[in-house]
C-alpha cells in the first residue's frame, strides 16, 4: 500500500492562553479586582503585624544608635598605660569585629591658656590652686576632622563644629572660666594661644615646663563654642571632670574642671604625629578608644540578639585584653526588652486569624463560582480547538495575575496599616506624627514577604485544585451566558438553631475546661476562630429562614412583594448563604475585637488600680510614720496610712513583711473579693488587728508550710539592729493584696501586671501589724503611704505639691502613665487596639467587596426575572424596591445575628486574648462591653452596607426587558 499524503496538524499557540487571560481579566474588572482585594486583605493582616514589629524594632534600634555617636569606649584600666594596656591592638581587634562599625582613638592632655594677659608659668600641678595663680588650664582633646564629623550629634554649638588647621573649638564652660581667670572674652572669631603639656604628672605632683613637655600652640582661631548634650553619653564619660578648689583654700567651693565641659578641641595636624604619640603615651590622661557598633552588622544577627551580642563582644574583648576596661552598653538592656516585647507581640497575629481565614475562604469561593459560571465559556473555547492545557493555563495565568495583584495590594495595605498600629493611642485614635515617623522607617522583614507570598500563592493553588475538575466536566456546546437557577430550599430552622447552640456552648465551655495560657491560649484562639466560622454559617442559615418567614408573614405590609421575597430568600442558598456568612463574620469579628480590646484595657486598668492599692500611693525617701498625719492637711485627702516594710525569711524562702494599720488599710485599700482566701477583707483585717503578732500569709506558703489560721509561724526578719526572730500567729490566708501585688510570685507562672507597673513586692509578702513590726524592728520610717481621697476631687494640685519634694512620687489611677512606666504593656495594648482598628477597616472593606461581588452577580444572573417583572407591568421603582428589600433584608439579618454572635465571641475571645498576653492578671479578668463604641461602629458599618445594596438594586431596576428577554 502506498502511503497517502497526510495533512499537517496545528500545534497551537502556546502564548494564546496568556493573551486570553489578559483580555479576560480586563473584561471582568469588578470581579477580578474584588478577588484581588479580598486576597490582599488576607495578606495584609499577618504582614501588617510583622511589618509593625520589624519597623518598631528598627525604629528603636535606630533611635538608640541615633542618640549618641558612640555606644562603647575602651579605656586602659586604672594603673595601666596606653602601652601596657595594649589599647591599639584592642582597637584593631574591635574594628575587625562584625559588630563594630568604626573605632576612634582620641588622646587628650592638659593645656594652659597663654597670651598677652598672662606672663608665663614656671610650675604646674593638676590639683594646685591654679586659677588664683592666673593659670587657666583645660583639657585639650586632639582629634581628626573625620572623628569630629561623627561627634556633631552629641553636641550643640555656636559657630562651627568642624576644624581646619589653625582653628580651635572651645567649650562653653572653658569660655566662662577663662573670663573668670583672665577677664578676657573668648568667643567665635577670637584667637587664643596655649601651652600643650605633652607629658603627664601625678595629680599632686608639681612639674616644670620642661618636665611636662611644654609645646606651645599659637594663634588658634576659635571657630565654635560647644556644649555636650549628655554628660552620661560615651563621649561625656570618656573625658571625665575632676573637682578642684581654685580660689580659696579654705572655702568649700570646688570647680568642675578638666572634663569635656572644660576643654578645647584641636586637630592632630596642628601638633604633628610625634606630639600626638607622645600625648597618647605619656600625656595627663590615657587616650580613649570610642567604638560605634555597626547597626547593620548587629541587625544581621537578629534584632532580638543585639543586647546579647554586644554584651558578649564586650566580655570577649575584656577577656582578650585584661588591662582594658570596656565602658558603655548601660542602655542596651532597655533596648533589648523593647525588642523582645515587639517580638512577643507578633503572637497577636492570631487574634486577626478569623479575618485571614475569611478572606481566603471568600477568595476561593468567589474564584470558584466565577469558574463554574464560565463553564459555557470553557466549552466554547474547547469547541474552537483549545486544548485542555490551553484552557487550564488560561485560568492559571489569570490566577497568577490576580495573586500578584493581591500580593502587591496586600503589601501596599500593610504599608498603610502597619504604622497605624505603631501610632495607635487608643481604640480608633492614633498619633499622626508617630504615624509619619513609622511610615518613613517602614521595614518589610523577609518573613512578612514570605508569609505574604505564601498566602498569595493560595489562590493559584486553589485554582490548581479546582479548575481542572471544572474544565473536565464542561461539555462542549453549552450556552455561554446564563446559568442554572436553584431550587427552593425546604428545610427546618431548628437544626440550625440547635447546631448554633451547640457551637456556642462549646465556645463558652472551652476556656473553662482548659485554662488558656501560653500555647494553650493560641490553640484555643484558633479553635474559637473555627467555631466562629461554624457559628456564622449556622447563624446565617437560621437567620435567612427567619427573614423569609418574617417577610412571608408581612404581606399586609409588603403586599405581593412578600411572596417573591420569602421564596427568593429560601431559594438561592448558593449566593445568599456565603454572603450572609461573610457579612456575619465581618460584623461579628468587628464586635468581637472591640470587646476584646476594650476588655484588655479594662483588665489593665483594674490591675493598675489594684497594684496602686489605694486612691493615691506615695513613694518617697523614708519619712517618719507621722507623715501620714501631715498628709491629712492637704485638701481632698481623707485618710492616709504608712506601710513599714522589712525582709523576712522562713527556711530558705525569702519574702517581705508589710506592716499595715489593719483598720486604716481596710478602709483605704482597694480590696477585691479574691484578695483573701475564703474570707472578705473586713474579717481578715479585723482578725489581724485583734492579734498583736498576727500575720496574713499567702495561700502558697500556707500550703508549703502546712499552716492555716490559728497556727504559729516562726519568722526571721530584718530590724535596725540586725536579724530578729519572732513567732507570728496566722490569722488569714491571701492570694494578693492591694498595693503589693500577688502574695507569692510562685503562684503565677509569668510576669504579673503589677510587676510591669513596678508595684509588685519581690518574691511575695505577708501582712503584719505595723505597730508590732515597728516596735520589734525599731523601724520608725516609711517609704510608702497609701492615701484615701475624697471621691471626684481634682487632686492635681495636691499631687504637684507633694511631688515637689525630692524623690517623692505620687501614683493615682488617673495620672499613671502606662506608656512611660511599662513599655511592654503599652506596646501590647497598642498592638491590640491597632489591630482592632485595622481589622475593622479590613472587615468593612471585605463586607463591601462581597456585597458588590455577590449581589452584582446575583443581579446579573437574575436579569431575566426582573425582565419578566417589567414585562408583566412592574415599574422600575417597584423592581428597585423589591430587590432592595430582598438584599437589605439579608444585610439586616446578618447584622442581627452578628450582634448576638459578636457579644458571645467577644466574651470568649477576651478571656483567650488575656491568656495570650505575656502578663498575668492577679484579679479575675474584667470584661468590658463598649456599648457606645459598638453602637457607633456597627451602625456606621451597617448603614454603609445597606446603602451599598442599593446600587445593585438600582441596576436590577434598569434591566431592559426587551433586550434581556430576547437574549434569553
Amino acid at each position, binding site marked *: 500500500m502506498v*502511503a497517502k499524503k497526510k495533512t499537517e*496538524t496545528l500545534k497551537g499557540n502556546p502564548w494564546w492562553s496568556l493573551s486570553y487571560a489578559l483580555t479576560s481579566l480586563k473584561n471582568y474588572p469588578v470581579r477580578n479586582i474584588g478577588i484581588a482585594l479580598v486576597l490582599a486583605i488576607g495578606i495584609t493582616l499577618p504582614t501588617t503585624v510583622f511589618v509593625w514589629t520589624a519597623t518598631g524594632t528598627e525604629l528603636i534600634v535606630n533611635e538608640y544608635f541615633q542618640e549618641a555617636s558612640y555606644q562603647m569606649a575602651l579605656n586602659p584600666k586604672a594603673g595601666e598605660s596606653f602601652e601596657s594596656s595594649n589599647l591599639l591592638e584592642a582597637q584593631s581587634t574591635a574594628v575587625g569585629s562584625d559588630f563594630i562599625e568604626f573605632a576612634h582613638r582620641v588622646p587628650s592632655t592638659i593645656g594652659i591658656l597663654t597670651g598677652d594677659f598672662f606672663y608665663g608659668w614656671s610650675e604646674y600641678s593638676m590639683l594646685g590652686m591654679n586659677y588664683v595663680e592666673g593659670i587657666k588650664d583645660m583639657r585639650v582633646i586632639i582629634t581628626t576632622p573625620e572623628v569630629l564629623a561623627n561627634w556633631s550629634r552629641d553636641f550643640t554649638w555656636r559657630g562651627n563644629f568642624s576644624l581646619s588647621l589653625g582653628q580651635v573649638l572651645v567649650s562653653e564652660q572653658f569660655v566662662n572660666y577663662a573670663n573668670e581667670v583672665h577677664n578676657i572674652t573668648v568667643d567665635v572669631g577670637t584667637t587664643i594661644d596655649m601651652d600643650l603639656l605633652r607629658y603627664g604628672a601625678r595629680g599632686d605632683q608639681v612639674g616644670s615646663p620642661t618636665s611636662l613637655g611644654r609645646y606651645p600652640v599659637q594663634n588658634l582661631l576659635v571657630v565654635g563654642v560647644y556644649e555636650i548634650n549628655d554628660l552620661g553619653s560615651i563621649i561625656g564619660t570618656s573625658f571625665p571632670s575632676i573637682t578642684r578648689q581654685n580660689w580659696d583654700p579654705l572655702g568649700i567651693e570646688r570647680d568642675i574642671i578638666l572634663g569635656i565641659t572644660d576643654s578645647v578641641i584641636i586637630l592632630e595636624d596642628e601638633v604633628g604625629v610625634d606630639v600626638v604619640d607622645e600625648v597618647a603615651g605619656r600625656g595627663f590622661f590615657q587616650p580613649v578608644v570610642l567604638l560605634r557598633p555597626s547597626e547593620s552588622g548587629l541587625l544581621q544577627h537578629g534584632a532580638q540578639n543585639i543586647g546579647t551580642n554586644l554584651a558578649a563582644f564586650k566580655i570577649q574583648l575584656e577577656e582578650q585584653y585584661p588591662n582594658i576596661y570596656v565602658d558603655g552598653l548601660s542602655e542596651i538592656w532597655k533596648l533589648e526588652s523593647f525588642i523582645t516585647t515587639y517580638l512577643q507581640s507578633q503572637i497577636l497575629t492570631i487574634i486577626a486569624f478569623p479575618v485571614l481565614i475569611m478572606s481566603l475562604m471568600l477568595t476561593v469561593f468567589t474564584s470558584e463560582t466565577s469558574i463554574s459560571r464560565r463553564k459555557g465559556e470553557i466549552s466554547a473555547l474547547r469547541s474552537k480547538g483549545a486544548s485542555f492545557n490551553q484552557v487550564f493555563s488560561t485560568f492559571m495565568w489569570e490566577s497568577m495575575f490576580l495573586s500578584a495583584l493581591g500580593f502587591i495590594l496586600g503589601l501596599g495595605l500593610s504599608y498603610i496599616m502597619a504604622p497605624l498600629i505603631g501610632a495607635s493611642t487608643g481604640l480608633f485614635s492614633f498619633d499622626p506624627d508617630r504615624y509619619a515617623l513609622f511610615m518613613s522607617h517602614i521595614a518589610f522583614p523577609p518573613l512578612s514577604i514570605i508569609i505574604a507570598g505564601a498566602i498569595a500563592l493560595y489562590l493559584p493553588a486553589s485554582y490548581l485544585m479546582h479548575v481542572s475538575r471544572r474544565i473536565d466536566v464542561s461539555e462542549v*456546546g453549552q450556552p455561554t451566558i446564563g446559568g442554572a437557577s436553584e431550587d427552593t430550599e425546604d428545610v427546618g430552622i431548628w437544626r440550625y438553631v440547635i447546631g448554633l447552640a451547640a457551637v456556642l456552648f462549646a465556645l463558652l465551655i472551652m476556656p473553662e475546661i482548659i485554662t488558656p495560657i501560653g500555647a494553650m491560649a493560641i490553640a484555643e484562639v484558633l479553635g474559637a476562630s473555627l467555631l466562629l466560622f461554624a457559628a456564622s454559617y449556622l447563624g446565617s442559615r437560621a437567620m435567612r429562614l427567619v427573614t423569609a418567614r418574617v417577610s412571608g408573614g408581612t404581606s399586609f405590609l409588603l403586599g405581593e412583594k412578600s411572596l417573591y421575597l420569602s421564596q427568593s430568600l429560601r431559594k438561592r442558598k448558593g449566593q445568599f448563604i456565603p454572603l450572609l456568612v461573610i457579612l456575619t463574620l465581618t460584623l461579628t469579628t468587628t464586635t468581637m475585637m472591640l470587646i476584646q480590646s476594650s476588655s484588655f484595657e479594662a483588665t489593665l486598668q483594674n490591675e493598675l488600680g489594684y497594684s496602686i492599692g489605694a486612691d493615691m500611693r506615695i513613694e518617697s525617701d523614708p519619712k517618719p510614720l507621722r507623715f501620714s498625719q501631715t498628709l491629712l492637711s492637704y485638701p481632698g485627702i481623707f485618710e492616709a496610712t504608712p506601710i513599714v516594710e522589712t525582709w523576712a525569711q522562713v527556711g530558705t524562702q525569702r519574702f517581705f513583711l508589710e506592716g499595715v494599720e489593719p483598720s486604716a488599710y481596710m478602709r483605704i485599700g482597694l480590696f477585691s473579693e479574691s484578695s483573701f482566701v475564703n474570707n472578705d477583707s473586713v474579717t481578715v483585717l479585723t482578725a489581724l488587728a485583734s492579734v498583736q503578732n498576727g500575720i496574713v500569709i499567702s495561700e502558697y506558703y500556707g500550703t508549703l508550710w502546712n499552716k492555716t489560721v490559728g497556727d504559729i509561724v516562726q519568722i526571721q526578719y530584718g530590724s535596725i539592729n540586725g536579724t530578729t526572730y519572732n513567732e507570728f500567729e496566722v490569722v488569714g490566708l491571701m492570694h494578693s493584696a492591694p498595693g503589693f501585688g500577688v502574695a507569692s510570685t510562685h503562684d503565677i507562672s509569668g510576669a504579673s501586671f503589677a510587676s510591669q507597673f513596678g508595684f509588685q513586692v519581690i518574691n511575695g509578702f505577708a501582712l503584719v501589724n505595723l505597730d508590732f513590726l515597728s516596735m520589734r524592728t525599731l523601724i520608725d520610717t516609711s517609704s510608702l503611704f497609701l492615701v484615701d481621697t475624697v471621691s471626684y476631687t481634682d487632686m492635681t494640685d495636691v499631687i504637684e505639691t507633694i511631688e515637689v519634694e525630692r524623690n517623692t512620687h505620687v501614683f493615682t489611677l488617673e495620672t499613671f502613665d502606662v506608656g512611660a512606666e511599662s513599655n511592654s504593656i503599652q506596646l501590647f495594648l497598642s498592638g491590640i487596639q491597632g489591630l482592632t482598628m485595622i481589622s475593622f477597616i479590613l472587615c468593612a472593606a471585605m463586607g463591601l467587596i462581597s456585597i458588590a461581588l455577590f449581589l452584582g452577580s446575583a443581579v446579573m444572573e437574575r436579569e431575566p426575572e426582573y425582565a419578566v417583572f417589567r414585562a408583566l407591568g412592574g415599574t422600575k421603582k417597584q423592581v428597585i424596591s423589591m430587590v432592595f428589600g430582598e438584599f437589605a433584608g439579608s444585610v439586616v439579618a446578618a447584622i442581627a445575628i452578628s450582634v448576638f454572635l459578636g457579644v458571645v465571641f467577644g466574651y470568649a475571645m477576651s478571656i483567650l486574648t488575656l491568656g495570650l498576653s505575656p502578663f498575668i492578671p492577679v484579679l479575675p479578668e474584667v470584661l468590658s462591653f463598649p456599648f457606645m463604641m459598638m453602637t457607633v461602629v456597627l451602625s456606621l458599618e451597617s448603614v454603609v452596607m445597606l446603602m451599598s445594596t442599593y446600587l445593585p438594586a438600582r441596576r436590577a431596576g434598569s434591566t431592559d426587558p426587551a433586550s434581556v428577554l430576547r437574549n434569553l
Partner: protein
Amino acid sequence: MTIAEELDLYGDYPDDVVVSVENVYKIYKTHELEVVALSGVSLQVLEGKIMAVVGPSGSGKTTLTNIMGGITKATVGKVYWANLRTDITKLSERVLTEARRNFCGFVFQTANLLPHLNAWQNIELAARIAGVPRQVRRDRVDRLIKLVGLEERRRSKAPTLSGGERSRVAIASALVNLIDTEGKGLVLCDEPTGDLDPETSERILDLFQELNESLGTSFFIVTHSQQVASKADITVEIRDGIISGFHQAGVDLDTMDDTRIVRLDRNYRLAMPTDLLERAGNPTEFRITLENGKFILVPQVGDVIDTMRVRKTRTCRVCGHEIPQGKFICANCGSTV
C-alpha cells in the same frame, strides 16, 4: 508519526470520505444505570457534501456529532478521519485536539460566542488558539466575514448581534481554520437554526450551500427542521441509536417517503423505519422472499406462534370435545389426554 502513516491501514477508504463512522456504540454510564445512546451506527461523510441527521430527541444525534468531532469517545467502534488517515478512537486527547483544529468546526444551537469579544474577534479566536500567524489569520477572518456578510457588524460585541448574525459568526468561526486547508474539512452543526425564524434559517441554509459549493467543505447537520433536511445531499434518519434509513436529496420530513434506503449493519441486521412500521400496524414478523433480484418483505398478520398454538389444541379422544391448549383433562367427559 503514527504507524498508520507508514502502513496506511486505512488506505482502503475511498478518497472522498472525510469522516467514517463504523459500527459505533456509545454507552453512558450514570450511577448504576447504562444508557445506550448509539448502537452500531455506521455512516460516511463524503467530501463536499451536506449530510443532515434527523430523528426524535434522545435518539443519539448529538452523541453521534460529538463522536464524529472527536469530543466524545465511542465505547466501541471506529471513527476514521481523513486528515489523520486513522482511527481516532485510539488517539490521545492532545493529538486529537491538534488534529481537530484544521479539520473540524463546530456550530451549536446556542451560537457559543464569547460575550466579551466582538464579531471579528470571535471568528478569529479559533485561529489564534491554533497558533495561525497574525497576517494569515487577519486575511482569513476578513475573507470569512465578507463571505458571511457581516462586514458592517465586525466591531459589534456578541450579545448585541441578532440571532441570525450570531449564527453567521459561529459558522465563520467554525470555518476559520478549514478555509485554507486544501483537503477535507468538516463542519459539525448541532441544530444550527434551532432558534431562528424560518426566513433567517433559510438564509443561513443558503449560506451553508454557498460555502459548501465555494469552499468544498462538508457539512454534517443535526436538525429537526424540514428546511434543513431538504437542503441536504443526503439525510440520515436515526432512532434509538440506530440508523433507520437514508434519504436522497429533497426529502420531506412530514411525508417522509414510503421508500428509503436502509443499510445492513456489520451484523447483517437491517433496521426497520418505525414510522413505516406504525403505518403497517406494527407488525413484528415479516416474510422475506427473494424474487427476480428483489427482496419482498411481507408483514405477517397472524403470529407464527399463534398458528403453532392453534395446532396444539387437541380433541378429546373419548367424547370428541375440544380440549384447550395447556389443559390435559377434557372439560366435558373428564378423561385424561
